[in-house]
């Protein structure tokens, strides 16, 4: 009784099942991240107050504004950019498309944040100076 004999003793069903399970698990490991919907949101805050919240999955254009300025936020292909800013140097427009992080428009006092819902909850202030 040795290992070879034991392996030869397995049925065809055993072997097929083993190969099938290996295939399924490898495919799963490779592809599951693409299949999963990632619940990321775009949040827009004007002067520290939350004004808009949109899912990153849906393409759209939104006009946002505060008393000090306004611009258009464009969501497309899970990315966000700012266009048509009313500010003079248009730094927010120059930042281009982002899929994570923040676009800040200082003149208008508006921030556009891309992040998961969890990240939003955990966000805390590290320190305040001044």
């Amino acid at each position, binding site marked *: 009784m040795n290992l070879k004999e*034991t392996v030869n003793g397995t049925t065809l069903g*055993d072997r097929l099942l083993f190969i099938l399970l290996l295939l399924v698990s490898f495919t799963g490991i490779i592809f*599951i991240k693409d299949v999963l919907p990632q619940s990321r949101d775009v949040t827009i805050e004007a002067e520290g107050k939350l004004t808009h919240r949109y899912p990153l999955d849906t393409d759209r254009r939104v006009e946002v504004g505060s008393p000090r300025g306004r611009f258009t936020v464009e969501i497309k292909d899970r990315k966000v950019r700012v266009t048509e800013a009313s500010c003079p140097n248009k730094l927010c427009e120059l930042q281009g498309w982002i899929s994570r992080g923040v676009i800040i428009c200082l003149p208008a006092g508006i921030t556009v944040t891309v992040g998961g819902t969890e990240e939003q909850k955990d966000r805390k202030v590290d320190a305040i100076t001044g």
Partner: protein
Amino acid sequence: MQLQDKRRIAMLSAYALALHGFESLIPMPIPWIRVGLANIITVAAFILFGFRAAMMVTLVRVFIASLFTGSFLGPGFILSLGGGVSGILAMGAVLYILPGLFGPVGLSLIGALFHNLAQLFLAYLLFIQKIEPVLIITPVLILIGTVTGLLSGLVAELLVKGLKKSEVTIQNTPQ
């Protein structure tokens, strides 16, 4: 239940418990991943003595092991019980619907697969309650379960063959 059956179940449960205890000594990179050595005994019990014996052995192992380690009625116990019972039910169903298609290795793989799936489902239902992390870990667990299931299935096959051979030898020995 015959006295003979009770003795067999007691013996097999003792072996399963010993393997279960031994297994906890093996260092693992992630704490809740187990080799599933006790699965060897479950599969052997299934093939030698049938569904009821295998179920009894598993129940005895899960309950007594949890009493030993102090995890009785804790989260680990619930997962262990759910996984163990589902594994046996799946093996029973497969053997009932498709008899002869699978040997010990196939049964062991089925048991490992349904053990993992049931545990993931229970963990999702009771403890995690978020589907994404469960789905991400599922294929990894299936892969690990397939590899360990293959190994314990091969050992179970060796065990079953050895036991059958020794039974023949005992029967043929002149009194």
